[in-house]
């Protein structure tokens, strides 16, 4: 650890006041938190989530400064000058006015139609969503039920297989035992046959001796 690090650490420790004879962790933590609060805020390391997009506001164009009194005075003078031409001006702007009124009416109608369709779309979307959710829940329930049944069946088959395995194992053991027993009996019968043969021979020999 270099000296600079040690100095930093010592400084860090000296900023927190600790009563070593009577350590109070709560107090130390309060001091640590106060120290963190007092530190200049650092920019977060991770990029913050993007905020909702908004159009940038356009600043109003710079207009020459005008006083309120000067403006109304100018307006009065212009109106006085234009008064003789008023009928002509009205005649000239009549078609434009008519077209503007028509456009406004059309826009109003379009807005009403949009409102109607938006409302209808929302309603239909809600209904579709409800139906889909109900279907999803139903499918989920059915799948769960089937999975449960499948697991139970798998469990049953596993048990059954275990039993069959154990049964076949027992059968093999029993058959092996029987085979061994059969071999033993065969050996015994061969011995008995030999004994019988020997006894026959002995019998004949004894008879020979008796009737000699």
């Amino acid at each position, binding site marked *: 650890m270099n000296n600079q690090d040690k100095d930093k650490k010592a400084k*860090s420790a000296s900023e*927190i006041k600790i009563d070593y004879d009577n*350590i109070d*962790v709560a107090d130390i*933590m309060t001091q640590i938190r106060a120290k963190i609060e007092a530190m200049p805020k650092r920019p977060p390391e991770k990029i913050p989530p993007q905020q909702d997009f908004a159009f940038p506001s356009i600043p109003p164009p710079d207009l020459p400064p005008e006083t309120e009194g000067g403006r109304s005075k100018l307006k009065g003078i212009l109106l006085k000058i234009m008064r003789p031409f008023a009928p002509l001006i009205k005649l000239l702007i009549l078609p434009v006015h008519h077209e503007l009124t028509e456009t406004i009416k059309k826009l109003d109608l379009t807005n009403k139609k949009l409102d109607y369709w938006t409302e209808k779309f929302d309603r239909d979307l809600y209904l579709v969503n409800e139906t889909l959710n109900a279907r999803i829940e139903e499918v989920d329930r059915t799948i769960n039920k089937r999975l449960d049944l499948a697991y139970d069946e798998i469990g049953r088959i596993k048990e059954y297989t275990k039993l069959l395995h154990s049964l076949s194992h027992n059968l093999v053991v029993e058959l092996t035992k029987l085979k061994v027993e059969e071999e033993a009996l065969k050996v015994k019968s061969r011995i008995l046959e030999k004994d019988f043969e020997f006894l026959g021979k002995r019998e004949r020999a004894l008879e020979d001796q008796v009737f000699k």
Partner: protein
Amino acid sequence: MKVAFVVQRYGLDISGGAELHCRWVTEHMQKYWDVEVLTTRASDYITWKDHYPKGNDTVNGVPVKRFSVAKPRHPEKFGRIQNHILTNEHREEDELKWLEEEGPMSPSLIRYIEEHTDDYDYFIFFSYRYFHSYWGINTVPQKSILVPTAEHDPVIYLQIFKDLFRKPQAYIYNSVEERKMINALSQNDHVLGEVVGVGTEVPEKVYPEEFRQKFDINGDYIIYIGRIDENKGCHELFDFFLRFKKETSSDLKLVLVGSNILKIPAHPDIRYLGFLSEEDKFSGLSGALVLIMPSFFESLSMVTLEAWALKKPVLANARCEVLKGQCLRSNAGLFYENYDEFREALSLLLASEKLRESLGQKGKAYFDQNYTWNVIEKKYLSIIEQLEKRK
């Protein structure tokens, strides 16, 4: 006095928190009572498949009765059911189905308890959330004592447990926070309960220098002991530690001990040593400057107690109420809720040897006062004594 300890798994090779807790308590209490352990044949806590032989067994002198698990757990099915009950409205029968799937489902164990109720004076159940505790306590509520080992996880809010928490005759809690949580959930303040926890034994001699040589560790280090897992806060610990290194240019090392199920960052100052023997573990702990406990969920944290027994300070995650509470009560550890607090608290601990020593001394005093086996045994005896007086 005949006392049955009922637990989900039991064996020398089982190192899970509640199971080890139960084994240690049982082994220590056998000098006072005629004890017997009632458990399943399971060894694996994921599937609960039968592993040990059925019937009677003896573990470190304690008689053990093992019962078969009727249905092993299907982890996938269990996950699906748990997800359903935690995220949807459901009925009590769904919760019981969840409990059945969580297991270890051993109806023969419950039947045995029912048929032999009169043979025992008390049944001490470990871990509230398993099949054996729920049905066992419902079978013999008048003789039940529960050691809940509860953490602040979502299943504790299930309705079946709210009802269950009102049934035992007494509680043995691991921490003050656990008691508060269960009291608040089920309004069971009237039930007798005491904060006891579990004792631990540390070796008389530890060998920090040999540990350094054996694992080739030079310089100062802090240590984490436990499962290296996201739930244990290790991911956040790696992140904080690497940021701390970058910002302070410190040559501090982080030593990790325990089984690993998380990707550990490849960094020369993060040393993973794997699962160590008890001797190496304690030697490693004694050589560390600080024990770090980044876990979000703990019902007690035995390793924190072991650090205090060795006079080591602790730096804990304050979002785990139990760890924060233990640090405040003992005055033996600092804690953090975010990176800034982590950096400042760790810097403070590294900078001041005197602070580390003072915190370590406080930790040792707290351990001696609350967690030596002598104290734990007395608390268990006192609870039974109080229950006997009530009869």
